[in-house]
């Protein structure tokens, strides 16, 4: 079984603070995706990382894929209340076709 451990599970911060969410596995990913889910909605893709060591930026969000392709992180700079939501990492594996294995999620609350 391929598992993804995501941490922290819950994060409550003040507007303007920085934060990092981690996603780890003992398995090597073929690619890793980060999704964001808002209340009452389905998850929406933020980014896909494919190459070990890859860094992608999306405005104030920075995504990093570990060199060994077993871990990833999401860093948010100067968080805003609009960043509030559930952040999910999802890994794809070469043996799993189009299937994604999701982490447990990080519930982020940014207080004004």
């Amino acid at each position, binding site marked *: 079984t391929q598992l993804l451990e995501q941490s922290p599970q819950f994060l409550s911060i003040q507007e303007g603070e920085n934060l990092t969410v981690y996603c780890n596995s003992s398995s090597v990913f073929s690619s890793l995706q980060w999704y964001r889910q808002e209340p009452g909605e*389905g998850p929406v893709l933020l980014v896909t990382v*494919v190459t070990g060591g890859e860094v992608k930026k999306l405005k104030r969000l920075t995504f990093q894929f570990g060199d060994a392709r077993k871990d990833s992180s999401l860093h948010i700079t100067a968080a805003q209340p609009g960043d509030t939501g559930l952040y999910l990492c999802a890994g794809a594996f070469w043996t799993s076709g*189009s299937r994604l294995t999701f982490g*447990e999620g990080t519930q982020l609350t940014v207080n004004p």
Partner: protein
Amino acid sequence: DTAVSQTPKYLVTQMGNDKSIKCEQNLGHDTMYWYKQDSKKFLKIMFSYNNKELIINETVPNRFSPKSPDKAHLNLHINSLELGDSAVYFCASSQWSSGSGETQYFGPGTRLLVL
């Protein structure tokens, strides 16, 4: 312009009843999925169909029966509903890949409450 739609959005029913959830995608994708999200927000895959063929069938009670009449539709029928079936059920679709991780597009979810 809805990409992946599900009906109904809310479903409240009594234990023991049979219910169905419908899903449709207009993205031209060939692969569709059903996920269950529990109260702890863990998203767990239940089934996946590729070109109407079942390709993933997780350890799900056989009270759950998916049906894909065509590539654009994947329905979920649940027999003899139990309290533990209460959750949010998400339909998703993507293009098939051989492990490179295609983007999955999710529907808005169906909130099932079994009383």
